[in-house]
């Protein structure tokens, strides 16, 4: 029986030009057999809408210019309005001092500087599997 591939939406915010990190993460996700949908140059609402249209398991965001707090809070608000329970993770240049605020917003996990792409891969695969089982059950 074939298992449907894990689908991940990767979002980069409107004017953030840094993509070296997210590029390696996307490469690792693809290598792990996941399907990656990449939207960049997007605002939080557009990212949420793409996630809804694509029916993804996880939303992964990247931020390297310091926009993470503001953009993530707007995105989480939009996600709440959509009443969809899609786990959101964030990576990039995120100072550890901002972790409590991001957790409070409902961000499931943060991969700051020094994280390995494989850490994101294994987290995404675990959380997707768990959510799929919960939905079935």
């Amino acid at each position: 029986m074939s298992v449907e591939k894990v689908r991940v939406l990767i979002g980069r915010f409107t004017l953030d030009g840094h993509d070296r990190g997210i590029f390696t993460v996307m490469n690792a996700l693809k290598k792990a057999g996941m399907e990656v949908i990449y939207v960049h140059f997007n605002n939080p609402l557009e990212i949420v809408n793409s996630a809804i249209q694509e029916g993804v398991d996880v939303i992964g965001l990247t931020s390297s210019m310091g926009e993470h707090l503001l953009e993530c809070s707007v995105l989480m608000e939009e996600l709440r309005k959509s009443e969809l329970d899609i786990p959101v993770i964030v990576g990039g240049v995120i100072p550890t001092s901002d972790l409590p605020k991001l957790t409070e917003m409902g961000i499931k996990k943060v991969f700051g500087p020094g994280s390995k792409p494989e850490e994101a891969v294994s987290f995404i695969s675990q959380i997707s599997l768990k959510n799929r089982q919960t939905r079935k059950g």
Partner: protein
Amino acid sequence: MSDETMKLRREWERDIAEVYEKKLDFTLPDYINESGIPLKCVYDREDVSDTPPEMPGQYPYTRGIRALGYQYRPWMIQMLHGFGTSEETRGRTDFLSKEGMRGYGKDNPVVLIEVDAPTTVGLDPDDPLSFGATGLGGPSISTLDDLDNLLKGYDLSKTRFAPNTRFTCLPMLALYVVYAENRGYKIEELIGQSQNDSLTRWLTTDIGGPAPKVQQKLRAELIHYTTNHMPRWNHTNLSGYHYGEMCAPPAQQLGIVMSQAVDLISDCIKAGLNPDDFIPRLSSQVHMGMSLFEEIAKLRAWRRLWAKIMRERFHCQNPRSLQYRMHVHTGGASMTMEQPLNNIVRSTLQVLASVLGGTQSLHTCSYDEAVGLPSEDAVRTAIRVNQIILHESGAPHVSDPLGGSFYVEWLTNRIEAEARKVMNEIEDRGGFCKCVESGFIRRLLNERVIEWRQKVDKEEKVVVGLNRFRSEKQSDVPAFSVDVQKASEIAIRRIEEYRASRKAPQARRALEKVEQVMLAYESLEQAGKLMPALIEAARAHCTLGEMMGAIYKATGGQVHASEYGKL
């Protein structure tokens, strides 16, 4: 090879074979440098027998573009900075100047400003697309008032103003020209720097903007204008930095930059310019990585390759066309969050390599840059690295101190040869702009990014503190934070006031003119009309976003044009 040299080399080879390989059962390491060049364990006369004699200040300028180097004047300590509001940025400028940021001398201040992302693409702070980005990583600079906040009190005939813009170099220059004019300066006195290399930024950051063909027209227009009206203005700073940050090795960075230079110069010739009139005002922003000798050789090869191309290909006669100047930016991506003080050591090596390679100017990254913008403490240390090397190490006392080193001379030749291969490959595929459009260069870089990651994961490449020699205890550097929301509110309020206080019909007419001129700018031969129209618009108090909006309106582009219809 002389008999004596031959004899000594034979003895050395025998030592290796008999002692190390046979007795100690040691296998010689096969080191390959970042540029993919295999290294031997040692170099001697034989490896550089074909290197012609050369002194500093002599063609092809491998050893430096002037007869005297740092003995005559030190390198510029230019620190790229900017955040929050224009006032906060000015506060940082003053702090940096006090700590030692300067041009060639104390009387030559430098104001190297990073602007926020909306400013780089041409969006005013009140544009919905600027949401969340205004004041981030630089202030919003859209008006003459914003420029005044950055520059009031500075003697503009002595100050090197260099705003780090992406697609908006032309509207920014128009604003600056009008700002200077209002303060009573003649434009021919101005001595700053436009980046004018949007293609590199477009290619490496993947952010929308005008199509590459439009960008080619814009860059030629800026050069056309400054060459005719602003002889002291440095119009173009070709970036190798972005390629370096995307893991392109030294020889590849050089090859890509030179292929872009050839493309750009050919465009300017089409636009009616004489090479010897504008080439002297070209320079490069060079990346500095960790591969010490390779980086030194890169800077030497950079100057030499440039001089050769300008003479052989563009038949330049003006010596200044052959003497290529560079500004080194140390590698931001080599900074780690782990054990952040290690980053000072990395910067030190990079600054030293830049000085041994003979750079004209340096920006040095701060040790906390893996977590955000630099704090005052961190950026002061970055300046101190320069001052310690300048005043304590003695490194700048002798020009091209590694000239004549068998290894460095050999490596310089090899880097030059490898860079030429990269150039040829790009030219065979139609040149730089074609290869930007086709995605070829981006693919080259993407491959490198993946390769870097794999090597780090497998520990084939060691990054101390990251994949080896990690410590349990996390030494956290506090991240420097900016009140971006406040900066954004201030910028929005100001731009509304700026628009409200001008004569709307005049502003509208000026923008319509920009749009018309851009529409009529069909080929490079027609260069020379857009800048005057933009300067008129800046005089009518049009904003940077509006001016860029008028250009986008004529050409299309992925960034939504700011609406000026509502005026």
